[in-house]
């Protein structure tokens, strides 16, 4: 008796709980980057409309520095990743589409600090994902350093809370 009804398709059940490979994680990351890019574009469009409404006679399209856009994009992506990883689902939208979940070494969702550090690490050094190919445990460089895992998990139910630190 399983104790609950398993909503996962039968052919996908053997992979649940195992660390994901490079293709799935790359696709998920690409979706997340696309979302952040769209979000940046929406922000730019918002600014553009604001300036149009605020100074309609002297309106000129705002020009943004590539460095500024890059920094803003990185910050937004970091914030987006961290918030989603420490949220109830432990997954970004890209993770959700690809059936992935980010967990700590105990199999629980990340705490705020760990989620923020991992998000920054991923944004600053995305090439660390390629270590999945050579790791015997399908871990990226970020996973090795921070002892996290990205697993196949098609279950939509939220993960358990991260353990609270014991205060002396």
């Amino acid at each position: 008796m399983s104790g609950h009804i398993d909503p996962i398709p039968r052919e996908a059940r053997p992979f649940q709980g195992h660390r994901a490979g490079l293709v799935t994680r790359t696709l998920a990351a690409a979706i997340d980057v696309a979302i952040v890019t769209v979000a940046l574009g929406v922000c730019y469009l918002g600014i553009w409309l604001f300036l149009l409404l605020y100074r309609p006679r002297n309106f000129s399209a705002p020009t943004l520095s590539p460095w500024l856009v890059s920094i803003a994009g990185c910050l937004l992506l970091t914030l987006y990743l961290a918030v989603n990883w420490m949220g109830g689902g432990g997954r970004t939208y890209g993770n959700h589409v690809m059936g992935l979940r980010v967990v700590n070494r105990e199999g629980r969702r990340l705490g705020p600090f760990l989620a923020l550090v991992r998000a920054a690490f991923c944004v600053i050094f995305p090439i660390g994902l390629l270590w999945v190919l050579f790791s015997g445990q399908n871990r990226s460089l970020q996973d090795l350093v921070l002892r996290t895992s990205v697993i196949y998990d098609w279950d939509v139910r939220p993960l358990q809370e991260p353990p609270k630190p014991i205060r002396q």
Partner: protein
Amino acid sequence: MTEHHRGTSSARTVPAAVDAVLGAAAMATSTAVSLTRLFARAAAPVGRLIMHPPILNERLHPARVVEAFADRGHVARASASDDLNRIIAAVVPPVVDEVLDSLDLTSLVRERVDIDALVSTVDVAAIIDRLDIDEIVSKVDIDGILRQVDVDAIVAKVDIDAIVRQVDIDAIARQIDIDAIVSQVDIDAIAKRIDVDAIADRIEIDAIVSRVDVDAIVRRLDLVGIAEEVVNGIDLPEIIRQSTGSMASDVVRDVRMESIEADMAIERLIDRVIRRRRARHTDAPGEPAQPEPPQEPQP
């Protein structure tokens, strides 16, 4: 006891004077007999001399005359005895019959005879030993006796209930070896002879079902567990996906499965290139145990 009764009866019926006379007579007679014997002993030599005088020829002795008289008297006595026997044979039976008829022998025996003492002296065991039972039984016509027996009348008089009440059914049941009896029963042969269809026709299913407490049965069932097992067995999520016809979910599932297959293909390729000997350990800690994903054997 008989002597005592006689003495008691005589004391009541004969006066004491008669007894005194009889006593005196008996004493006189005894005295006379003694005197006679004494006289005879003293006179015996004289008598022998008279009967056998030495001066006479033996043929002329008086003893011869006496012997001749004795022979004649013996013959006469024998003749008289025969006559007396004939007279007794003729007279005594009717007299005895008359006497017996006048007597109540049954009451006489009951009063005068100690039957218990008499029976106690009888050796019954010795009598039985002398009997040849087999010979007696062989002479009995048992078939004839049985033909005369009215069995129905006997059975009608038997109180079956009283007999049954005295039977210790429990003691009998304890002595019965049920296992031995059952082991000799051919259950298969009995089962083959049972007409199950006829039995089933006689059963009133509706009456039985109406007495069944369905609610109690349902309460004892693990309906949740059964439902989960059934749902997992029929792959309900797949049925829901097919019935809803969600193109998006189908696309997502296909993309996920294909990406997983691509992951595995690339992992196999890389493992072959870097000549990894051991299989990847992808099971994440803390997660529920899941079966290992299919891996190709490493070269």
